[in-house]
């Protein structure tokens, strides 16, 4: 039995009774009680050691102030819409939701479920994620706090990125668990950019997040997820996306924090001509472990999908990439391209890269490739022979390797944070910027 016990009394005390959410929580609790947390023996969890998480006795996180972290991670003027949650509770002082653009609704799930959005919440919440297949998601559904509700009305074009900042504050005396929950409902023909930042501080905590995105026909969603949790923490995240006809979804998932992190990202291309691009970047070192499981489920014809995951692994870090592409029998003319590339900066870093194609249609194009290796000695010498010192040469080559993913991130503050992180990681004050490199053909970037 798992040691992540839920104290129902705490839950009931801190959350207002809600006719929409309560049945969903109760049903999830029943599922979780039945299946429990994975033991690590399951195929899906084989490469990620869960013992540290299972050994900890977590309590739900209490809301606290987090001004320092907010100052560090806020988008400030670069986003007019920012919702900030501290240990699962929305902060009124820190969030900026007063002047939302037309066609956009951003509030907490608790609030949305209690007002005119109740029907939409009931219709979508928990509908994309299969709790039986994802025990952590079941736990999240049982435990989540305020939650975030984002609704983009049909035909609305939202220019400014919508920033969802999830702050987890650990507790020195007791490990805490934070269960952030996000629901995005995107109407027909809408366009929006959504950024989820996961940050935190403290010795030991588990951030167990679930995000569901439902994109109606021809919706265009650009999504960034930046995981910069505290280096001693655990981060488990499940994201489920469903795309209607002609809908476009581009994901940029950057993982730099947490001692152990696991991301499940599943996209269902449910309508004809939907498009999905999954870009991933893992930048870890020391004894960090990051596991990305992605699934692109082609359930309709004429859908292209692109996937590019890059890993930069330093120290004794390890990463897992399992990229599954499932092509349904009716999904003819599927065109799926997948690539995973890993740069090992030390002999002790490691990666397990596993593509998995499951194809039931006969007229499809699916390709996958995987490469792994150290920094090229010839390249390093070439740079050094021109007077560029070893550290700068190493940084430049690492940066250029990651740039394949970072250059696709259109949200400036996200890209800058990744760049700053890389420079700091290599102990370099030098502020290398993607524009400096200037060596990409922009036409090939979607």
């Amino acid at each position, binding site marked *: 039995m798992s040691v992540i016990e839920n104290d129902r009394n705490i839950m009931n005390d801190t959350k207002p009774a809600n006719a929409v959410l309560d049945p969903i929580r109760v049903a999830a609790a029943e599922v979780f009680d039945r299946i429990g947390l994975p033991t690590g023996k399951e195929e899906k969890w084989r490469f990620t050691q869960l013992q540290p998480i299972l050994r900890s006795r977590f309590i739900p996180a209490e809301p606290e102030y987090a001004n320092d972290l907010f100052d560090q991670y806020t988008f400030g003027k670069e986003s007019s819409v920012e919702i900030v949650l501290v240990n699962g509770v929305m902060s009124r002082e820190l969030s900026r939701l007063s002047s939302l653009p037309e066609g956009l609704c951003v509030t907490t799930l608790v609030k949305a479920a209690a007002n005119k959005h109740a029907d939409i919440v009931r219709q979508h919440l928990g509908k994309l994620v299969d709790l039986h297949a994802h025990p952590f998601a079941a736990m999240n559904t049982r435990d989540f706090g305020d939650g975030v509700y984002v609704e983009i009305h049909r035909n609305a074009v939202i220019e400014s990125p919508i920033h969802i900042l999830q702050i987890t504050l650990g507790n020195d005396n007791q490990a805490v668990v934070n269960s952030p929950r996000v629901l995005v409902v995107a109407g027909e023909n809408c366009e929006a950019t959504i950024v989820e930042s996961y940050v935190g501080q403290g010795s030991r905590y588990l951030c167990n997040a679930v995000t569901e995105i439902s994109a109606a026909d021809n919706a265009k969603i650009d999504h960034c997820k930046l995981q910069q949790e505290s280096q001693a923490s655990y981060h488990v995240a499940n994201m489920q996306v469903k795309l209607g006809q002609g809908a476009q979804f581009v994901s940029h998932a950057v993982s730099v924090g947490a001692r152990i992190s696991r991301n499940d990202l599943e996209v269902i291309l449910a309508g004809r001509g939907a498009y999905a691009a999954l870009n991933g970047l893992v930048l870890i070192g020391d004894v960090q472990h990051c596991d990305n499981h992605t699934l692109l489920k082609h359930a309709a014809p004429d859908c292209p999908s692109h996937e590019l995951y890059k890993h930069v692994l330093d120290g004794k870090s390890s990463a897992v990439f399992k990229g599954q592409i499932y092509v349904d029998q009716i999904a003819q003319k599927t065109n799926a391209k997948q690539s995973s590339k890993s740069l090992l900066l030390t002999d002790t870093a490691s990666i397990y890269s596993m593509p998995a194609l499951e194809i039931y249609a006969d007229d499809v194009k699916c390709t996958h490739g995987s490469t792994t290796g150290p920094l090229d000695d010839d390249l390093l010498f070439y740079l*050094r022979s*021109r007077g560029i010192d070893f550290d700068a040469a190493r940084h*430049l080559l690492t940066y250029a390797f990651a740039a394949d993913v970072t250059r696709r991130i259109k949200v400036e503050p996200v890209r800058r944070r990744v760049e700053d992180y890389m420079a700091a990681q290599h102990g370099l004050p030098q502020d290398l910027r993607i524009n400096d490199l200037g*060596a990409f053909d922009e036409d090939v970037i979607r």
Partner: protein
Amino acid sequence: MPVLEIKNLHAKVAGTDKQILKGVDLTMRKGQIHAIMGKNGSGKSTLCQVIAGRETYEVTEGDILFHGQSIVEMSAEERAREGVFLAFQYPVEIPGVSTSYFLKAAVNAIRKHRSEPELDAVQFIKLVKEKQKMLGIQESFMNRAVNEGFSGGEKKRNEVFQLAVVNPLLGLLDETDSGLDIDALKIVAEGINRLHEQDSERSWLVVTHYQRLLNYIVPDIVHVMIDGKIVKTGDKTLALALEEKGYDWVEREAMSAV
């Protein structure tokens, strides 16, 4: 004082017993062009890389003096900043890094070392344009990733262009003629000659397998390298003799001298 003085240089492949340089002696003066000729595997490319500071080779004996200062213990980047430039036999492609960014980083690393102010973007572009014009190189070059998708000739021209921008005291040309057809060879050689005319203080060490490059770049001194040693030194006529008679006679001469 000689620009470069190589004394009894021995070097092996690091971590192995494979000795490649077995006692090289060479002295170059300011403004001179020296050519090193030799068969494949004679050690001439290794010599260039050892001078430039490649760590895959380990110096086991002897010394390399650059302007009287030993550089054997220096890193590759320190040597570059002191004024050594290696034009590679096989220039690498660096995806994702533009020639512009790369060259600016190189120029400023060297300027910083010389306590000169770093060039800003405008000054750098001015310098680049001047050198591009001199060598007949298109401007679009700068925005492309270093050497990516370049033909053999373009890569070699890029090496000479980089040399022009970096402005070293010693240019090591490692088989700059290899893989080039005669037209490409002429263009590259003309560039080098122009640089030589412009700055008579710079010295050149030209490593080549064939004499044909030396029709365009006329050396002051020609060395012949066999099995990790310089066995014969002469003027430019030595190159012609090698072209005509091959290397065997030098080899025999060297053997009988032992």
